[in-house]
């Protein structure tokens, strides 16, 4: 952010005649800062921590806070590439079914005696393959992403359902349990949380600091203008779907390892939960707007909301209702703020230029 203000303050080369609002003044900068969705969300998160700390003596405890990460790390990993998908104006509602398929493949291989490393490779490969399958239909055949992933949502899970029926794979080798259950060294930091942290840094770097990320933003704002600017739009979208599949494969490894079994209904309903995280994080469902840090805050906010409510013995239903309200607010507030800002600017303009 600092280089942004640096750039604005230099005022080099710009024709200054039409400057209506002095964006560099402290007041304007504060208004700008506190109308950012990520900032509002962070404040809400801090409020949540303070609230639960006062309500329950078990909440603000290092070991408990770390352990709670087991409950949201897999969805958090899946939310990362979903940011790219939604940012570029697509959608993928098949990610939970990809987990089912990948977990089924791993269970099948484990039953045949495969060891931990092989299982991980199988999980990742199946995830990547499923993502590329989605991407092929969306970009090569030009079908709408919602229709393709609606179909593969049934298809992918259907495969594991057809074979497993009411059975389950429950025999996984000892070497496989670390990915979902292990801690880093002698600490109480879950290995799952480390995976998420590393991937979040990596994806954040790609989204905000590389040409790939810039192209994703451009595509999300206008596919056509991006194409006219020489961007290979369909290639980027294909890679997004492939990444989404790969990360679902990673989540499948984490989840299967953590619970140590594969049933056909594994991760059922996670598609919408993952999309919820991304939208709550401030990524516009129509694409082009939002940031990765915003989504990370949303992940923590919802993750610890669930944990805190669990401590308070609230039922899961209260949690679902709360999420729904938050989501409505997440969609409403940025639109409302944009409207207020535009009106304010118009008023200033008229005051300056009657």
């Amino acid at each position, binding site marked *: 952010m600092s280089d942004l203000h640096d*750039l*604005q303050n230099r005022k080099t080369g710009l024709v200054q005649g*039409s*400057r209506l609002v002095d964006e560099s003044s402290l007041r304007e900068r504060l208004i700008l800062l506190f109308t950012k969705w990520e900032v509002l969300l962070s404040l809400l998160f801090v409020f949540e921590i303070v609230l639960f700390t006062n309500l329950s003596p078990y909440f603000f405890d290092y070991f408990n806070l770390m352990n709670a990460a087991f409950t949201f790390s897999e969805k958090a990993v899946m939310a990362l590439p979903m940011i790219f998908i939604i940012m570029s104006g697509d959608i993928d509602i098949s990610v939970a079914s990809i987990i089912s398929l990948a977990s089924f493949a791993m269970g099948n291989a484990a039953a045949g005696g495969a060891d931990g490393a092989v299982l991980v490779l199988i999980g990742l490969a199946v995830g990547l393959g499923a993502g590329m399958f989605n991407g092929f239909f969306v970009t090569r055949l030009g079908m709408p992403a919602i229709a393709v992933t609606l179909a593969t949502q049934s298809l992918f899970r259907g495969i594991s359902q057809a074979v497993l029926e009411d059975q389950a794979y429950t025999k996984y080798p000892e070497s496989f349990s670390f990915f979902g259950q292990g801690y880093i060294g002698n600490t109480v930091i879950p290995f799952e949380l480390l995976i998420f942290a590393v991937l979040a840094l990596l994806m954040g770097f790609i989204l905000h*600091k590389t040409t790939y990320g810039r192209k994703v933003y*451009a595509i999300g704002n206008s596919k056509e203008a991006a194409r*006219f600017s020489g*961007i290979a739009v369909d290639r980027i979208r294909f890679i997004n779907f492939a990444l989404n599949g790969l990360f679902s494969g990673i989540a499948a490894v984490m989840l299967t390892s953590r619970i140590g079994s594969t049933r056909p209904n594994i991760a059922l309903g996670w598609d919408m939960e993952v999309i919820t995280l991304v939208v709550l994080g401030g990524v516009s469902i129509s694409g082009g707007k939002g940031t990765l840090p915003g989504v990370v805050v949303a992940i923590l906010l919802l993750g610890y909301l669930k944990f805190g409510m669990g401590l308070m013995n609230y039922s899961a239903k209260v949690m679902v209702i709360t999420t729904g309200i938050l989501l409505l607010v997440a969609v409403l507030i940025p639109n409302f703020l944009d409207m207020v800002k535009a009106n304010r600017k*118009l008023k200033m*303009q008229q005051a300056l230029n009657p």
Partner: protein
Amino acid sequence: MDPILEVKDITKYFPGIKALDGVHLCIRPGEVHALIGENGAGKSTLVKILTGVYSITSGQVFLDNRPIEFRNAIEAQEAGIAAIHQEASMFPELSVTENIYMGHHLRNSKTGMIDWKSMKSSTRELLKKMDLAIHPDTLVKNLGVAQRHMVEIAKALSLDARVVIMDEPTSALTLREVEDLYKIVRQLKKAGKAIIFISHKFDEIFEICDYFTVLRDGKYIGEGNVADTTVNNIIRMMVGRSLDQLFPKAEAEVGKRVLEVRGLSQIGYFKDISFTLNQGEILGFFGLVGAGRSELMRTIFGIDPHSAGQVLLDGKPIALTSPKKAMQQGIAFVPEDRQMQGIVLGLSIAKNITLPQIDAVSRAGVLNAGRERSLTEEYGTAMEIRAAGWQVDADTLSGGNQQKVVLAKWLATRPRILILDEPTKGIDVATKAAVHKLVSDLAADGIAVIMVSSELPEVLGMSDRIFVMSEGRITAEFARAEADSDEIMKAATGHSIQQRETNEGEMEAGMMEAVMMEEEKG
């Protein structure tokens, strides 16, 4: 006679722009009133206010001497104001009857159900009154552009409109269809309706209009009887200076041939297009909307496919497979639809300028903030973009400044060939002059320019050679000195084909074919 509609001192703000500034307009019954002004003068904004699409910031509108404010389009319709838009806003999959009665279906008074029978019979009557051979059940998608306009007019009549606004109704019509339109306009006039006629074509204004009002840069400039004025007078009011100052094409040395297009075709859009382009030259492409000019340029830039022919750069054929390939060959393309194709509205000025050059401002895929800044400053400054900062989103800029961003982004690629599709559409006069000067300077620096434009004065003023397209073919070519606006218009409307000497055998063949086609039709 008392005015039907009167606009007094209205002002309209948009974020960042003052679109209208103290505008007056007075419309009397039985009058065809020309609303004149360049693109960006505020005509469309005024029309949108009169039809209830936009609200007024200050000022008043009077209908029958009573102040009125439309809160939405339906209120304006009910008050008797109907607009026929440039690009017909219709439902292509619905029938003529359904289109005409969309929003005010007739109902059976007993059952409350839609009364198809009376809707159809009154549509038939309406069409008959207008002398139109269109069946009420025809789907609108099966109608030609001219017929669609007529149906829109029929809709206005079905609403019993007293003020009919026609926004460049002839821009896509052939000469014969224009005559039909005039006939209907005269009918309306006789029936005591008031018509607001927006047009860029002076012959039309002098043919059909009684009175005129001129706008420039959102301001009211003047009004008067058409009979008491001259074309030069109106031009002076429109642009604030005379014509020869507007298009400052400098003499540039025409260098060696850079681009050659041979027999390029795309089924359904254009056929057998051949031309050459030299360094330092500006080629003007004139034609009516839908003549295939934009499609041709899109194909040369690698966006759309082609079915036959080839494009040679420095004598070597190039593959027209993607915009990226075209860029690497030194071709830049400023598309017609600025908001959808030219610029990414949700990104900042800086990000827009560097977008085609994204690989040049990065190392191994990682963006370099310093290089991005210097590229933005170099080209953004050269274009004199007016904004609060380089990080301002493009959607807050005015049309003219957006176009400057688009030009900056393409000039930053250092092109050898610059293709401009309607480069001054919808921008203010000052920016327009700046764009013309820029293009002229670029040509003087040896860049080869193709300029597609529907504004004849612009084409005449800027081009070294002019190609006219009609129905997907090149129907005429003129050198700067021999260009004549009447001949150009005729070639553009497919009315007569200009016969001339040419070196290009293929093109001659293509033209002969066009002549034959024309004869078959006649």
